[in-house]
């Protein structure tokens, strides 16, 4: 029973805090760093408050996993 909350927290963390985001429009972070639309941003480069604000606005989106993560799906075509 005590493990349940921990599991939820961990899964939420992986869903909302992936490694990379992509800027949907141009953004300026709270420290005035500028990312143009289409720029890929490492999650670690964004402050938690900025990340939350940009996600709320739809200004950034989770970047799709790289090929390595999708190997299982793409393998049939490749072969």
């Amino acid at each position: 029973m005590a493990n349940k909350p921990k599991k939820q927290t961990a899964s939420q963390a992986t869903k909302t805090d992936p490694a990379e985001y992509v800027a949907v429009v141009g953004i300026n972070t709270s420290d005035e760093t500028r990312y143009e639309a289409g720029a890929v941003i490492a999650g670690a480069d964004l402050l938690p408050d900025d990340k939350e604000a940009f996600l709320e606005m739809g200004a950034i989106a989770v970047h799709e996993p790289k090929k390595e993560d999708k190997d299982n799906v793409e393998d049939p075509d490749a072969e």
Partner: protein
Amino acid sequence: MAVAKQTSFLCNGYELAGFLKSFTPEAETESLDATVLSDQYKAFQPGFKTGKLTAEGLFSYDNTNLDDIHNIFAAAFDGGAANVITASFGPIVVGEPALMLTGPQVKYDIPVVNGQLIMANAEFQASEGIGFGYWLANAQLNAGSTNGTTVDNAVATSNGGVFHAHLHNNGASDVDLKVQHSPNGSAWADLTGAAVNNLSAVHASGYAVVAAGATVDRYTRQVSVVTGGNTTLVSGAFVRR
């Protein structure tokens, strides 16, 4: 109560407050007769909303600089459908109200009465209604990128808006203006659609529409990017819908 004093009237990039005595914005709604047989009294429903603005000024023209009231109103009358008018109710201050209209000039008259001042009066029809927005910028800017002062709207809105921009260029070769919005006042994103780019001529102006249904977050600011020159006066205002 408010007294009109040191008011601004920007028309297509020109400040006409030095010529005008008054301006009057009017908003109207069509009244559609919805009376049916069983009614005892006439019944009405509101139809399309519209707006117009009349301006009364002192006639003046300048054949050299082409920047007096007659030059501007005559050009606007001849010119086209998308005149950009942004007016204030006092000195322009970021965050203070801006009256915003985009549309054709439908009337221009010059009453000449013996012994009286010659007047220059114009009427503008609003293409999409008259907007009551807020100033985002009114400043002399040097070359470079300038983030304007933050305007707090208290809440986010969800039906787009219109951005007006006026430029009194003093040397810049290219000026790009846009609106950014933010839910917290520190992380800013470009507001999709709210950009007026490539202003380079003296007294340039433009407007941009943020699509209906688009969210505009609580805080807004103008970002001005000036290239190739200094001391450029930039004014901008945004109205939410």
